[in-house]
């Protein structure tokens, strides 16, 4: 979320030969629509955060505070981590204008591969993890090949993949569940870093990590600010800047506080945090990330701008396979085994997270952070309704409506932004 001061400069002095002031109406028009775009884009971006806060508060009140209790916050992290990991890859796929329906089956197949090696063959846990990742990369390369080089729509390729990899899962597992994993493997999704520094009924280490994260956030924001000042870019006023960092810091520390009072820092949270940071940077700041947005925004224009569209599309799917494998490892670790129907419908949760988080069906729009918040909205709602004992069927109805309304809000906003001319 960026707040910039209103753009100040008017169109600059015109060159002497150019006809003077030919289209002030157009300029005026563009100016207003830009302010509007700024407002609406801020609304679009902040709307999701506001919705998240409202939903968290709502369920905190409805459950009498239970939903925010240390134990439950920890549970939520463990329970939804794999959906969030999938959503990171999914939002990138969606920004490029594709879709991936196969990730649930890929979660199952990679988890099953790992289970066969570790449980049945008795190999060490890391062999299982590496094998799962290798399978994920292979699957990604397979789907990327069909989408990027043969030109089959991703919807078809991944629909086929959904069936294909589900079938292979059944083959690998001989139609039966495998369990349990050795305890080291279980620590991936169920383990905690705690007691490293001791504490009085809470884990000081978790708080320390929280504090380091906040400091890192403040530092990187400050550096960005300095760089912007150096380039004479508008920055938000200093009090606002400080307020933003304090607010984020407070939320992170409150979160860490709750974790510290439960079982400490979940290992899977560290994995998730690293992935979110890394992919946040990749999508926003790298050439590859830019090319993903360019392809989704206008494929032909991207092609004619020298973007190697095929290669980019290929790697997008390889990356999705990689993240699906990570999710597969986390899920198999959490469920302490591999089941033939593991990961069923995960693709829909991941897709929903991306769209609730502001990604556009037509491509070119979306953020990793948005997808994470979208996923968390779903997580908080599901978890809250479970605590309240809401019937499963009703949960599904509510989730469906939230997805619909979130996208409807998005479309409505875009239409308003687009009708200014």
């Amino acid at each position, binding site marked *: 979320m960026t707040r910039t001061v209103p753009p100040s400069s008017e169109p600059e002095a015109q060159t002497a030969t150019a*006809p003077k002031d*030919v289209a002030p*109406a*157009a300029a005026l028009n563009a100016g207003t629509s*830009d302010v509007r775009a700024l407002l609406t884009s801020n609304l679009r971006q902040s709307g999701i955060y506001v919705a998240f806060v409202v939903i968290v508060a709502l369920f905190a009140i409805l459950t009498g505070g239970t939903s925010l209790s240390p134990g439950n916050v920890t549970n939520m992290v463990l329970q939804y981590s794999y959906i969030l990991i999938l959503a990171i890859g999914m939002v990138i796929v969606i920004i490029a204008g594709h879709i991936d329906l196969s990730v649930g089956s890929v979660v199952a197949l990679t988890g099953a591969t790992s289970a066969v090696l570790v449980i049945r063959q008795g190999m060490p846990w890391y062999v299982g993890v590496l094998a799962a990742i290798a399978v994920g990369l292979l699957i990604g390369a397979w789907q990327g090949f069909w989408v990027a080089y043969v030109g089959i729509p991703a919807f078809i390729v991944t629909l086929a993949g959904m069936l294909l990899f589900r079938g292979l899962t059944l083959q690998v597992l001989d139609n039966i569940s495998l369990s349990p994993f050795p305890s080291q493997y279980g620590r991936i999704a169920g383990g905690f870093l705690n007691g490293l520094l001791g504490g009085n009924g809470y884990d000081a280490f978790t708080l320390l990590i929280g504090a380091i994260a906040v400091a890192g956030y403040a530092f990187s924001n400050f550096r960005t600010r300095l*760089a912007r000042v150096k380039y004479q870019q508008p920055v938000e006023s200093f009090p606002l800047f400080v307020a933003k960092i304090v607010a984020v810091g407070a939320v992170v520390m409150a979160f860490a506080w709750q974790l510290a009072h439960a079982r400490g820092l979940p290992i899977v949270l560290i994995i998730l945090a690293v992935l979110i940071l890394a992919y946040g940077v990749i999508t926003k700041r790298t050439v590859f990330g830019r090319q993903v947005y360019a392809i989704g925004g*206008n494929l032909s224009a*991207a092609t*004619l701008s020298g973007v190697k569209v095929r290669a980019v599309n290929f790697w997008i799917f390889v990356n999705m396979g990689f993240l699906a494998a990570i999710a597969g490892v986390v899920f198999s670790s959490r469920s302490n085994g591999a089941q033939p129907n593991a990961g069923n419908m995960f693709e829909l949760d991941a897709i929903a997270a991306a769209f609730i988080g502001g990604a556009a069906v037509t491509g070119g*729009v979306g953020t990793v952070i948005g997808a994470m918040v979208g996923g968390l909205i779903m997580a908080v709602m599901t978890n809250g309704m479970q605590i309240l004992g809401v019937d499963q069927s009703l949960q599904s109805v509510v989730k469906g409506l939230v997805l619909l309304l979130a996208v409807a809000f998005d479309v409505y906003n875009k239409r308003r932004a687009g009708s200014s001319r």
Partner: protein
Amino acid sequence: MADHILEMRSITKTFPGVKALEDVNLAVERGEIHAICGENGAGKSTLMKVLSGVYPTGSYEGEIVYNGEVVRFGGIRDSEHVGIVIIHQELALVPYLSIAENIFLGSERRGRFGLIDWNAANAAAGELLRSVGLDENPVTPVGQLGVGKQQLVEIAKALSKDVKLLILDEPTAALNDTDSEHLLGLLRRLRDRGITCIMISHKLNEITAVSDNVTVIRDGRTVETLSLASGEVTQERIIRGMVGRDLESYYPERESHPGEEVLRIEDWTVWHPTQDRKVVDGASLTVRAGEVVGIAGLMGAGRTELAMSVFGRAYGRNISGRLFVHGKEIRPHNVSDAIDAGIAYATEDRKHYGLNLIEDIRRNVSAAALGKLSTRGFVNGNEEIKVAEGYRQSMNVKAPSVTSVVGKLSGGNQQKVVLSKWLFTDPEVLILDEPTRGIDVGAKYEIYTIINRLVAAGKAVLVISSELPELLGICDRIYTLSAGRITGEVPVAQATQENLMQLMTKEKELAA
């Protein structure tokens, strides 16, 4: 006292924060062709949307008097009901449906049981096609027709609605000369049948050729209505109304000092990507530093295909021939190679092939040369803003900041963003495909100025254009292309529209 079919009285339309139309008056006589002209963003399209009910009564001030009565339209259906039909610049036809299906789309003639009687519909469609002079079977899918014929189908569709007042928004923008001529002829015939036409157009020669009156709009206000009947109103006079002053000339002066050869294309042959025919056949040409070279050709002559195939094989298959930049042979396999070799190609269709409309100016300017802004794969966002800001100012892009979304800029400003994008790749040779299509006179002049600045800086520029006066105005040399072959090379001093047209229509020579 003239018989006015339509009077729009002091129309004011305000969008949040901006007045698109202010006190606009328009009076159209029954049975005339009335042209509306003005620069992009002047408010022509907005005015027509008010008239056709896209903006319903109440969303604007002022009144519309139609056939002597004040009318209030709640939507397009209301205006169509009284015989006002608008044909938009982007045609609203469904390519997979037949001509007849398109004509009756939305007003299907239902027979018994509410089913459509296709025999009757096809027969009626055939009748309508004959009245617009289109010799096609009504069951032909519209997608198989060229743009010119599709335009005629649109008019046939309007006629099926019993049109009294036909509004055409830039009807000839996408048509070649023959099709334009045909369309304008049809408008005359419709006028003779008593149908009043309002035509929005940029093409002043067409306006002076067919219309009876022209209303000039500038900055959301009516400037004047000129009567063309006497034939005394010149194009220069209209331009003065549009831009508020005389253009000393359409084309800025430039001294020509061609240097050494920058681009050489030898024996370039390109096959159609799906059909078994050559689109470009053995074309050879050269462009020197500091020189503007034009390519003239009719639609389908292979101009864009030639340019795009040179630009990293972005079009066609079985491409053969040799390419030299600064005397060194290059073999670009993709667009990225071509950019690296110093070739830039600004497309004729900026909305579909040139720009990412949902992104801002900054991201579009950097799109073709992100490598220049990044180290080890990481983009320097601040440097990017600085670069884009530099181009925004030097190109005089009218937008408040480089974070303005490109899709909301006017055509001329979008074109400047496209040019900025390609200049940032620092090309040796710049291929401009229809650089001034769909942009207004003032912005055209600015684009020409930019081209002059480029050649003054020693770049080589290759311009493709459908407008011969434009080529004659800005080029040093002009190649003519006909059916994929270069049929002539004419220094601009010896070129006239007539001799160019002769070369452009020259038949294939038998001896190869």
